[in-house]
């Protein structure tokens, strides 16, 4: 590896490779670029045919959607739901992950497998009956319902990442603590959880991203009071005269925090997304 690196550095990089890599980056980033620039266009500029590439940017779309169109409120709804469901998933998931990493018991593998394979189930399968149940309780359009249903994908991701993390915490520490007379809860809380902090943080980021991005449950289970930002953005698509600038401003507001979080966790992104398919 190091030898290969050293040799590569001596040789100049082929121009073709550089061009290809730049092309790949361009391909990945262009839609993002187009979203941001369109969000800075007035409706007149946005509806010029063919599209213009240089124009005077304006933030008017942002002020309009945030203050007149209730996108601001929907972003706060998204934030409330994502933060609380993440907190709840960590509260329920980290002890479970600890138990899966530390204790031996019958059916452990099956239980772990059941947690993880939730990743495979299509949310539409759950959305329908969940809607009927929630409706009969008269609890449609509340934050708590989204917070709970999002556990179906957040809990597995927390358990998946944290089980690995707990396994990497040396067992000697636990055993030493047992000799000192510490109970399991104390060991978990005082010793292992702090040491597993990196994994816990990564799983929290994933949980937040997945909840923040979610559309279908939000579309089905909320109307106005608890409507999240993606569901709000879809609402703009009705009618003929599409407000491109406003749609893209809302989209940008939704995507920016996700991209920041994803770049922070970019090293673990693949690991998180392959949940349920690798060991």
């Amino acid at each position, binding site marked *: 590896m190091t030898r290969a690196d050293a040799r590569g550095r001596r040789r100049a990089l082929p121009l073709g490779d550089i061009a290809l890599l730049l092309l*790949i980056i361009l391909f990945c980033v262009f839609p993002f670029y187009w979203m941001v620039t369109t969000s800075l266009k007035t409706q007149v500029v946005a509806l010029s045919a063919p599209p213009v590439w240089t124009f005077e940017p304006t933030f008017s779309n942002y002020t309009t959607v945030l203050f007149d169109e209730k996108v601001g409120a929907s972003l706060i709804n998204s934030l409330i739901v994502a933060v609380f469901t993440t907190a709840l998933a960590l509260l329920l998931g980290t002890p479970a992950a600890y138990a899966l990493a530390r204790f031996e018991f019958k059916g452990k593998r099956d239980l772990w497998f059941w947690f993880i394979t939730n990743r495979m189930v299509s949310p539409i*399968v759950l959305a329908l009956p969940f809607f009927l149940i929630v409706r009969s309780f008269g609890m449609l359009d509340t934050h708590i319902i989204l917070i709970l249903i999002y556990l179906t994908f957040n809990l597995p991701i927390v358990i998946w990442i944290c089980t690995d993390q707990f396994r990497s915490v040396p067992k000697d520490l636990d055993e030493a603590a047992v000799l000192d007379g510490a109970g399991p809860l104390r060991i978990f809380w005082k010793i292992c959880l702090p040491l597993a902090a990196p994994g816990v943080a990564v799983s929290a980021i994933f949980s937040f991203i997945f909840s923040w991005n979610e559309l279908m449950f939000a579309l089905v289970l909320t109307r106005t009071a608890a409507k999240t930002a993606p569901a709000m953005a879809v609402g703009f698509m009705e009618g003929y005269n599409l407000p491109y600038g406003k749609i893209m401003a809302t989209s940008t507001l939704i995507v920016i925090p996700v991209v920041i979080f*994803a770049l922070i966790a970019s090293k673990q992104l693949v690991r998180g997304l392959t949940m349920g398919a690798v060991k």
Partner: protein
Amino acid sequence: MLRFQNRRLTIVGFLGPAVVSLLLVGIAPLVFAVYTSFHRYQLTNLRKIPFIGFDNYLFVLTDEVFWQAMGRTFTLLLISLPIQLALGMGIALLLHKPGLGYLRTLTRLGLVIPMATTYAVVGLLGQVMFNIKYGVVNQLIGFLGVPPVNWLGDPSNAFAAVVFWDIWQWTPFCALVLLAGLTTVPGEVEEAAKLETKNWWKVLRHVQLPFLIPGLTALFILRTADTLKLFDMVFTMTRGGPGSSTELISLLIQRVGFRAFDQGLASAQAIILLILTIVLSMLYIRFFYKEVAQ
């Protein structure tokens, strides 16, 4: 292994809350869906919910609309997955070359963008960029001398747009998974093979491929599951149209359940989808995993 008094109680205490909550939000609705699927359950007429046995299932299994939606879903998978794997493999091999320096870091960061973009926003972007008149896609292909294409108004073009975004969003994922596989090839083995032959295909086929199998298996399983789940991007871009040309399986179930209000039928469709997902996962595991497991 650790020894506590009340070992059983400890385990239940740690695992219980997670298991119970997942049972409540993940399994209870499924049980209710099974119940609903055996009844004529319509939101517009909830006073009468007669038991009708397997009628909903029989209807679904012989329903052309259902199988067409299934067909479209698998068509999407069969078109985009090979392209994603081929492009992803190319990108992975390119990034695996030594001496890329900061350009590798930059590309890796660029690859994160499509994966991180909110699925619903990808669909909205589709509406904006693929618009026949104001869209940048038609402008770009116009530079190459191609006349404007009616992307979202024509059935097969709309499907092509769905394929395009699926490829845009998930090729980076394939690339990164395969790149991770390439880095597990022992350096000496790869060096030796490269001294032996200049043919990159031979190196890939005989030296690197065995190390890529776990990643490829994961990609097959995940891309299948995710295509069966795909909803947000297509819903925000085409709503399943024009006609029903992009109505994938989850969009069909959503339409039947929430716009035609036939919950019994939609539940039967959902249960069949679930069974299919389980069977496919088990098949995959049987065919691929046995080789991977040491």
